[in-house]
């Protein structure tokens, strides 16, 4: 029982963070209809910013959110404006050239990080990095629990933003039907730029929250990109609630898989679920939740 509950807790806490990673991706995917294969790399950049803040400026990771999120917002805006949007006008045989472009951007970000910080492992050791508290026999990592609640707060904020603000509504409209949104006077270019910025800022938040418990090196982006698209497909494209479900599902699947099948299957479980969902539930949990 203890094993089961501990696994459940581990899965849910991790799932919260995954959800935050997934929301950014799902917004980008919904609005632009492309898969951002540089998502994990953007997170990596956010993590390096957190690291620099902590290590050189002595800023606690939770306050570093105030630096990493705006910085990544600007980076996302720049990427969308100068590399992805111009592609709409480029005549190319492959319709996936925007996706390929994100691959290139991911490589550039990784290598620039390596240039600046070398391949060394970096970590942020705070006083709470390895603290935990117990409820009964079950251990809760302090940093992960805080991260979970901040992630939930961001998610709720995103809901409010998407449902209650004009900009949020425009983003949702564009995600649902680009042509209709254009007719209604939405400036699609501006929306894609802002969405990429917001998506980047959200994944930066996830990176920053992960920093106290995890570590950092330039190649860390790849696995998280993979997780991000798994979460997004699980959740259904463009669906914010779906992204949370997707994140939790992946978190739980990984945790239970690791406990009851084997830790070596950790990554594979996510990928297999991903392929199964692609095939049997093409619109992800969106179909079930309808949000």
């Amino acid at each position, binding site marked *: 029982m203890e094993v089961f509950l501990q696994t459940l807790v581990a899965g849910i806490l991790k799932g919260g963070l995954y959800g935050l990673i997934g929301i950014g991706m799902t917004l980008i995917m919904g609005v632009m209809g492309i898969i951002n294969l540089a998502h994990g790399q953007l997170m990596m950049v956010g993590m390096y910013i957190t690291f620099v803040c902590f290590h050189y400026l002595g800023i606690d990771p939770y306050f570093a959110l105030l630096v990493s999120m705006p910085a990544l917002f600007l980076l996302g805006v720049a990427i969308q404006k100068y590399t992805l949007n111009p592609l709409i006008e480029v005549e190319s045989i492959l319709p996936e050239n925007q*996706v390929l472009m994100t691959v*290139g951007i991911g490589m550039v970000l990784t290598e620039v990080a390596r240039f600046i910080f070398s391949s060394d492992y970096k970590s942020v050791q705070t006083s709470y990095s390895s603290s935990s508290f117990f409820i009964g026999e079950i251990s809760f990592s302090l940093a992960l629990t805080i991260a979970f609640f901040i992630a939930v707060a961001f998610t709720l904020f995103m809901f409010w933003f998407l449902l209650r603000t004009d900009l949020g509504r425009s983003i949702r409209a564009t995600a649902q039907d680009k042509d209709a949104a254009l007719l209604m006077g939405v400036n699609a270019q501006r929306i894609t730029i802002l969405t990429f910025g917001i998506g980047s800022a959200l994944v930066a938040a996830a990176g920053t929250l992960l920093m106290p418990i995890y570590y950092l090196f330039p190649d860390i982006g790849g696995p998280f990109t993979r997780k991000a698209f*798994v979460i997004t*497909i699980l959740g259904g494209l463009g669906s914010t609630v779906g992204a949370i479900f997707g994140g939790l599902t992946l978190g739980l699947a990984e945790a239970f898989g690791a406990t009851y099948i084997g830790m070596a299957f950790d990554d*594979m479980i996510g990928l297999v679920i991903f392929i199964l969902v692609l095939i049997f539930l093409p619109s992800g949990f969106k179909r079930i939740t309808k949000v």
Partner: protein
Amino acid sequence: MKRFAPFLLLVILILFPLLVRDDYHQHLMILVLMWVVIGAGWNVIAGYTGQVSFGDAAFFGTGAYTAGLFATKLSISPWWAMAAGGVAAMAVAFPFGWICFRLRGAYFALATLALNEVMRHIATIWEDLTGGMVGILIIQTFVSKVPYYYIALALAVAAVIGVQAVMGSKWGYYFVSIREDQDAAESLGIDTHLYKMISLNIAAFLTGMAGSLYMNYMGFIDPEVVFSLHDISIMAILVGIVGGVGTVYGPVVGAFIMVAVHEFFRTGFFGFFKGLAALTGSQAITTLAKYVMQAHVLGFGILVVVVILVLPNGIVGDWKKITGWLPLGGGRRSAA
């Protein structure tokens, strides 16, 4: 002139090992030829049929492991496994395509990416069969590079001619129709699912053969090497798009350029910076040389970004655009 260019190229390639006898350049050419095969495969499924694959390493690795396992488990010469490697890769491609071709565009691309990773995990975890990360090791058949060179050349020539033949046939028309508009293709009586499967299997077969060649030539594989997303799958895409998407000779140009660029960066522009540093004795240039040499992946990344922005159809596809830029091509431009 243009019509004879391929024959001229072929003659040069046949004579190459007789003219250039050093192993270093022969080795680089073998790599180029191997990438021609992989690039040709990628070009069939992605360039011609429009189903972008991010998972070529799944087929490459399967081919390589087939050859390796033939040698270590069955004691059959891994050369026999050249064809078997292709077939084994098809055996992976077949069920995968059957299931995943209901996905379109970017979703199919993601599924291939997932396949790539799943195959790598399987090769890593299934230690009893594959040896896990310990990898598979065989003793190479030949000491000289020349036999490998000609085998690779034969394979590359067969791949290019084969692709050309396929593309001139009904299949070719069907592949391109699917790329251009799947619904229209379907309405014209094209079984798009079937022909996407055929296309994927051609790609898998070629890539698997290249994998077997790699095993034979390198003598050692492990899951990280042959199922590498970065070094195989992404490289295959680069060969495809840099050379020219949907062109017969694109992969040839792409493979040559990618291997050359890689080596160019690795050796600091073939020793250019080292030479410059030695000539001038400048510490700054020595430092610069170090950075340049470290920047090869960055160079690749920038290359991807620039190629997609400026030459979205690759060097062969956008050849006219390029000749317009070069000062040497000025004569023709003045006519316009």
